[in-house]
């Protein structure tokens, strides 16, 4: 029926008849489009390319399953209505008329009925929440325990300012996760970090072995900070609360993608924290921290995302705790892969697979040995607009 519609319309406007196939070319959203009325009063979108000597044409409406025009188009560029258009003159000059898809903005596409939908997602601008299944300590005893978890991020926002020294600001608000059986929770109220790519190199080396050549060394420094962190654990010896009041670190980007949304980064700094447990009571500490982060968007449209983080924290308590020293150690490694599997009303649902290990000696009732966790789950994201084009 859609083919018939196209044929009828083409006869009416005098264009070549062709069925609606899935491999139709698409109009360019950045190029002007004419809207031309046919003899029946129906409006067609036409985009001509003088170099290729082709004119793409499509109905100026969404179609129903039978090919009838039913709705105005969404996200199509404004067209020039009733502009001068002479098909015979164009054909005499060698132009060929080809059925096509209506133009769409970057990150969107249309189906055979010209309905628009999003096919690129920026997971670095979103609100999300998800649930995961988490077997715990799979190395110690694969059948010993199992648990479920939820994770959430009320605001994930990144903003790139372009220019001589492109800078990416990253903001996270109220992001965390909660595990049950046994219970543990992590929450960060506010996170901000910034990456820059400096215009001038810090050092430039010139080698004179062979032809002289120059090698630049950039020092892309940045800032990483968090405030209002909370970590809760429930062990055999009671509840433990770790309040990470504030942490600030200097960062060095070892590698950056062109738009800074992917990076490999080393960071180090200090934090101020307080910890309360039912064995030692409350104690405060200054904490030295360093970490290595890898964050990569693996494809152009943001469907595949990889994160890796390894960090080491050394709290120094202001007073000794029991017979322990004033120092503790916390080491953690975590890798996460997230892939979008479908979108509901252009809001992505993604699959998350993660694995991690942790070793620490600051929690009463938790042995000072590596514990490993894997989990897999689903995340639902709101907002997630198309990724920037460049």
């Amino acid at each position, binding site marked *: 029926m859609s083919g018939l519609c196209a044929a009828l319309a083409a006869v009416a406007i005098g264009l070549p008849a062709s069925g609606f196939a*899935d491999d139709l070319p698409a109009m360019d959203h950045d190029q002007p489009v004419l809207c031309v009325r046919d003899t029946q009063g129906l409006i067609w979108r036409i985009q001509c390319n003088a170099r290729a000597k082709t004119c793409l044409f499509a109905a100026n409406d969404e179609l129903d399953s039978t090919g009838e025009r039913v*709705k105005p188009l*969404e*996200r199509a560029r404004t067209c020039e209505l009733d502009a001068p258009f002479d098909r015979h003159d164009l054909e005499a000059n060698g132009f060929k008329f080809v059925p096509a898809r209506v133009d769409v*903005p970057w990150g969107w*596409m249309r*189906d055979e009925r010209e*309905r*628009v*939908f*999003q*096919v690129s997602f920026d997971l670095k601008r979103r*609100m999300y*929440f998800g*649930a995961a299944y988490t077997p715990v300590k799979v190395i110690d005893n694969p059948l010993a325990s199992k648990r*479920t*978890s*939820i994770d*959430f991020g*009320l605001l994930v926002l990144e903003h790139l300012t372009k220019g001589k020294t492109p800078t990416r600001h990253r903001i996270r608000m*109220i992001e*965390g996760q*909660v595990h*049950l*059986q046994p*219970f543990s*929770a992590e*929450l960060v109220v506010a996170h901000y970090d910034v990456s820059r790519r400096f215009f001038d190199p810090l050092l430039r080396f010139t080698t004179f072995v062979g032809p002289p050549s120059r090698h630049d060394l950039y020092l892309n420094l940045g800032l990483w900070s968090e405030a209002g962190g909370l970590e*809760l654990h*429930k062990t055999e010896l009671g*509840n433990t*609360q770790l309040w990470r009041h504030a942490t600030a670190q200097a960062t060095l980007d070892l590698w950056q993608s062109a738009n800074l949304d992917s990076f490999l980064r080393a960071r180090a700094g200090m934090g101020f924290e307080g910890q309360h447990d039912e064995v030692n009571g409350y104690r405060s500490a200054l904490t030295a921290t360093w970490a290595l982060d890898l964050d990569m968007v693996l494809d152009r449209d943001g*469907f595949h995302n990889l994160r890796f983080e390894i960090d080491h924290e050394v709290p120094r308590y202001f007073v000794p705790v029991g017979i322990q020293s004033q120092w503790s150690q916390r080491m953690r490694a975590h890798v996460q892969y997230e*892939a*979008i*599997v*479908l*979108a*509901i*009303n*252009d*809001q992505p649902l993604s699959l998350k697979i993660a694995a991690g290990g942790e070793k620490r000696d600051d929690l009463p009732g938790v042995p000072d040995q590596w514990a490993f966790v894997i989990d897999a789950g689903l995340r*639902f994201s*709101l907002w997630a607009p198309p990724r920037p084009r460049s």
Partner: protein
Amino acid sequence: MGTAAPALVASALVVLAATAGPARAENRCTGVTADGGRFATCFDVGNRLSLTAGTDGFGGGIALRHLIRFDDDPDLSWKMEHALIDATHAGFADRFTAVLYRGRYVRHARDGHLVLPLFGNARKVFLPFDIGALVDVAAVRWQPDQAATIGVIKTAALIDLARSRDFRYLLAVGPVARWDVSLARHPIAVAEHAVAPFTAGLFAWRLESASGLTWAELRVEAGAAWHSRDGWRPDASAEATIERIVLAINDRPISLVTGARYDSLTGESVARIGVRIAIIQHRDQRVTLTALGH
């Protein structure tokens, strides 16, 4: 306070009846008195700073709501509703409830759809609903002779079957995830954690009159939550609210509020009635208080 509120409203109505003159309507939302004075007859109840006095105590809150629209897609909008520092304190009963932030975001689209991008060519399947989310952050409930409860976070995915273009209708269901912490009060210490990892369901209904004079809302949650002391338990809660604006002073509305709340965790069923005064309220855009040419 609960008995004082109806008396206050009754007195105000008597005063209003004694001084009111004949009026006509300038438009649907603007009334005009016989001597040309204009007054609002429609109210934007979603944008205001209000105080409430009722049988459950004295409180107040900030409500904001707005639409986000897009130039390149006029049939898509985000309906954003926010409540900030919504608190009620009953000093005589040692009872305090508050929520630091509550948000409800609904993405309204002319055609809902499901896209399957990973399996061959992207496919679009029609869905007859809008989607959205609900978020509660830092909800505190302090009750006499009981542990205090802090709802650290609650979030829900919403499927809105009403698909309204504005804020007047909502008929939504969705799975709920939440994390609550119960605190022992003497001394203050963590007593229990309760986590529902999307194992509860939510039903939300809202109806608001075109004038904004009356609105009603119902929210029901039921399901299972894991408790750190005794494992999985069924939990249910429900809350219903009806508000009717009965009077406006200088176009600032005063309304009667009534409602009921049930929570299986505490076994409490509470009914309430009170008076709400909008201290600051965004004027409904349909109201015209200045005559054309003046």
